[in-house]
Structure formats: structure tokens, C-alpha cells
């Protein structure tokens, strides 16, 4: 008589012996590759710009690049809005107080974590494609347990967004040019990215058990939830607007081209 295989629970515990590491036939490597190239290029550009120590301010129109805001070293000159407590030294970025927090905000961001765990750490490179590492303990121990500090980086990012808004307002006092438009687009996108953060969603109302008792927080949570669904897009858009804003101001400061003025 034919029998069925081993009974459930009582038999062997071996997985199916499938030799191929993955049987995926689509181009699963494309998305991590694009992420790798995109993030790598952006980090390279930002590093070069941050340690360039010039072409960050257009005095005529008060344009300050977000990579140097707030400017707090001795090279800042008229760009310094908050004093210059730091000496000028080639290893100290002009925005030495804010850049570490911005880096931390993006490093611990729930979207970027997915992006770099997949593209850089290959853990896993794509769904149903094997992990590139033999052992895995996730975010349970040092140093990755510090990913849980994301909300502190979020608080810092809110303060930095206020400073960026101030930069845009200050530039607005000189009239209106293409640079102002670029600065405002950048600031609005930065706010959208910051407010769409998963920690913000939690603080806004996600932590509540009874939405009906907190109607205002519920509405705020609903708003943040809508933004939060676009967190990935906003993460990439802000990388683009940051680089574009910086490049435009660098071009103006270096006299490669002149600002397109609409008023004044």
C-alpha cells in the first residue's frame, strides 16, 4: 500500500534539499544596486562639499547652503547667524553642531535602514535571496541596538528644520530669485520628510490606545500616516533637493552662473 510521508510534528526536521541559493529569475539585484549607487554617490558628494570650506554663501542674496547651516566656524563671515564658537580647521565642518544629528537621523531612519541593510550589508539583498552573513543577531545588541534612539534624532531634526526655514526666510528679505524658490522647495520637502518619520507618527498619536478620547491627536496621526506612506519617496526627494540646493548655491558663489532674479 502507498503511504503518505512522515506524520506532521513527529518526523524529520530537515528542510527541502534545494541546491540553488535562490531560484528568483527576475532582476532582484537591480533595486539594491540602484540604492547602492544612489546613496554612495550622494554621500561622496556631501562629504566633498562639507570639507570644501568655500562657496557656501551668496552674500548678495543671503543664500546659505543647507550643508553649512547653521554656520558656526571662523570661515563663515557674514553667513554666521548664531556666532562662531568654533575655530576654522579643515576637519571641522562649518555646521559641526547639526550635521552629526542629521547623519544620525538618516542613519536610524526606518526607511534608510531597509535601504542600507539590503544594499550595503546584504542582510538580505532582496526577499528570498540568502543573507550575505553567516550569523545574525539583528538589532538586539551593541551597536545596532542604538537604532532605537531614532526619536532623539527626530527631535534634533525638527530643530534643524526650523533653522533651515529661518535660512529661507532670511534669503527672502533680498527679493525673489530662482535661488529662493529652490530654498523654499528644499525646506518644504525637508519638513515633509521629517514629519513623515515613523517616530513622529508614534509620538503624534500612534502610541495611544483610544483614538476616540484624543480627537486632535487622532487627526494629526491621520495626517502623519498619510505622509508616512510616502516616507521612502520623501527620503529620496530630500536627498535630491539638498544636493540641488547646495549645487545651485555653490555655482552662484563660485560665479559659474548668475541667479535668475524675478524681483529685485
Amino acid at each position, binding site marked *: *500500500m*502507498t*503511504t*503518505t*510521508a*512522515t*506524520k*506532521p*510534528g*513527529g*518526523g*524529520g*526536521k*530537515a*528542510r*527541502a*534539499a*534545494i541546491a*540553488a541559493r*535562490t*531560484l*528568483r*529569475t*527576475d532582476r532582484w539585484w537591480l533595486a539594491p544596486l540602484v540604492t547602492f549607487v544612489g546613496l554612495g554617490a550622494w554621500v561622496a558628494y556631501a562629504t566633498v562639499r562639507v570639507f570644501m570650506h568655500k562657496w557656501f554663501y551668496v552674500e548678495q542674496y543671503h543664500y546659505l547652503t543647507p550643508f553649512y547651516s547653521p554656520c558656526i566656524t571662523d570661515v563663515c563671515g557674514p553667513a554666521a547667524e548664531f556666532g562662531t564658537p568654533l575655530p576654522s580647521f579643515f576637519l571641522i565642518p562649518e555646521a559641526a553642531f547639526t550635521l552629526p544629528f542629521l547623519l544620525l537621523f538618516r542613519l536610524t531612519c*526606518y526607511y534608510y*535602514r*531597509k535601504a542600507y*541593510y*539590503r544594499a550595503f550589508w546584504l*542582510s*538580505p539583498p532582496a*526577499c*528570498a535571496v*540568502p*543573507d550575505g552573513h553567516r*550569523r*545574525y*543577531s*539583528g*538589532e*538586539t545588541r551593541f551597536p*545596532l*541596538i542604538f537604532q*532605537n*534612539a*531614532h*526619536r532623539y534624532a527626530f527631535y534634533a531634526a525638527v530643530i534643524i528644520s526650523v533653522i533651515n526655514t529661518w535660512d529661507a526666510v532670511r534669503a527672502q528679505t533680498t527679493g525673489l530669485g530662482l535661488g529662493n524658490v529652490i530654498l523654499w522647495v528644499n525646506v518644504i520637502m525637508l519638513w515633509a520628510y521629517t514629519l513623515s518619520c*515613523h*517616530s513622529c*507618527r*508614534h509620538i503624534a498619536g*500612534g*502610541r495611544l*490606545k*483610544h*483614538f*476616540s478620547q484624543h480627537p486632535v491627536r*487622532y487627526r494629526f496621526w491621520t495626517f502623519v500616516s498619510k505622509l*508616512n*506612506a510616502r516616507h521612502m519617496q520623501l527620503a529620496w526627494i530630500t536627498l535630491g533637493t539638498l544636493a540641488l540646493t547646495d549645487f545651485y548655491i555653490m555655482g552662484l558663489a563660485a560665479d559659474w552662473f548668475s541667479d535668475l532674479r524675478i524681483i529685485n
Partner: protein
Amino acid sequence: MKRHFRVWRGDAGGGDLRDFEVEVNEGEVVLDIIHRLQATQAPDLACRWNCKAGKCGSCSMEINGKPRLGCMTRMSTFAENELITITPIRTFPVIRDLVTDVSFNYEKARETPAFAPPSGVAPGDYRMQQVDVERSQEFRKCIECFLCQNTCHVIRDHDENKPAFSGPRSFIRAAELDMHPLDSRSDRKEYAQASQGLGYCNITKCCTEVCPEHIQITDNAIIPMKERVVDRRYDPLVWLGRKILRRDQLETRPAPSSVAAPPSSARLPASAAVGPDGHMDIAELTAPLQGGPSPFGDDLTFPIAPEELLYNHPDKGNKP
């Protein structure tokens, strides 16, 4: 029109991919092809299936390497000359051919503390507002196909994490109960962190990608649960506030030992009756018992005396 298929055949002892040429008609799904295979060339090909409508969660398999439901994968999504490879889900032990032993998931489900009714409200008097229960309802869409459990690299690529890690399916259950307006347990965050292994998740979102019910597992369950754990475990401001305001002494929280809560049912799953060769009979007619094994075990007679029931009332010290 005939198309080329490769299907994994074998059991725990070993197996390999076999080639088949199978007729494919317009409008068919992969599960139809499996059925045609069974009807024509491979009558003993084992496959779990039930509803053919993507609602029972039985026909989980890997089609061209991707975890999918066989009944929800249309043949029209493949190119006409494409070779289609069908394998069992990899993360769980194989029983035979496309059938795997998914009892890992049921063990983890049993370990998750059940809904704790609010004290002072009799069953039948539970009242909730829709806005309050809405978030939990998304997770009730789960059909328990275990594709998320299968694709999660924490256990798929690292079998040794299985004891410590409960998987996305258990996380949405934990989130569902923690967000539930009437659930009275307050230690679910601690439980998720200490006993379910929430920290192992590195939010690479594959569970969300494969979910046939399109539940936003990562964004709506795992990340909110991680943030709730941060509230309790990793937030120094919250910790300081609780110490200064002495809130930690006000709250009547269960003793820490209850964090690793006992399973809500002490009984292990009953296994099917087997013949002397250790295998089940293939035909029901010749088996000693007809029909599937009772989920309560075959050695029980009903009604069961109340003192033998396996229900742990949450208010009564959690003693069985």
C-alpha cells in the same frame, strides 16, 4: 499549449527538481497546473490546498523563487516560453513535495498571551468605537499563509534564531492586541521585546512585500511595536519621568516574571494516528479513524469537565 515546469519532489530524506511539460489554458493559475499534474503525470504529488480563492492560506509555495500563493499566481504573468520552478517554502521542514510542516508558527501563536478581557465588563457588554479598533482590524485580515514567516531572513537564513524569534505573523498579533481598545494586558511591549525577539527584525520589509492580503506588516505593526518598546525600554527621558513622578510605583503592573508568559494552552498539538510503519494511511477508508485528527486530541470525550478546560483566565493568577 504546453509549458515547461520544474517541480521539487522529495521528502525530508532528500529530493530534487523534476521537469514536466504541462498543458496550460487561458485564465489558469499555478495551482491549476499542480492539479493537472496530479491528474495526469504525477498522481502522488503532495500539495496543500483548499479554497482556490486566496482566503485559506494553504497553497503557499515558492514560484520562481518568490514566496507566493499558488492560487493567486496567474499563469498570464509569465512569459510564454518561461520555465516555471515550483518549490516548497524553504524555512520550514518539508513533509513531502510541496507540503511543509508549519507547526513552528502554531507553537509561536500558542506562546503569545491571548486577549485579556477588561475587568468589570461582562462578556456581551464589550463596547468599542470604530476608530479605536480600526488599526487592530487590519491585522485580522491575516489568512495565516505564513509567507511572511517563510520569507523573513531572520529564520529563513538563520535557523538557529527560531527559538528566539516569533516572526512577522506573531508581531502583527502582538500589535493587534496591544492596540486593542479593550485588551487589559499592559506588558505586551515587554513581552514582544523579551520573548518574541522583536529586536531581531531589521525592517527590510520582505514580509510586507509577500503578504497576499497586503497588510502593512512593517509600517503598521512592527515599527509601531518597536516604538512602543522604545517607550518602555530605551527612552531615558521616559524612564527619568517615571522615576521622578513615581509613576512606576503607581501602576499596578504584573510582576516581571509574567513577561515570559506561559503558553495559553499547556497541551501540545495532537498528532495524527499512524500505522506501524510510522506513516499515515493514504486512504481514509482503511485508517482506524476517519477524518482529520481532532484539534483537541483524539482521546477526549465531550463535554469536558470545567476543571479540565485549558483556558487561563487572565485575572486569576494565570493558573490553568
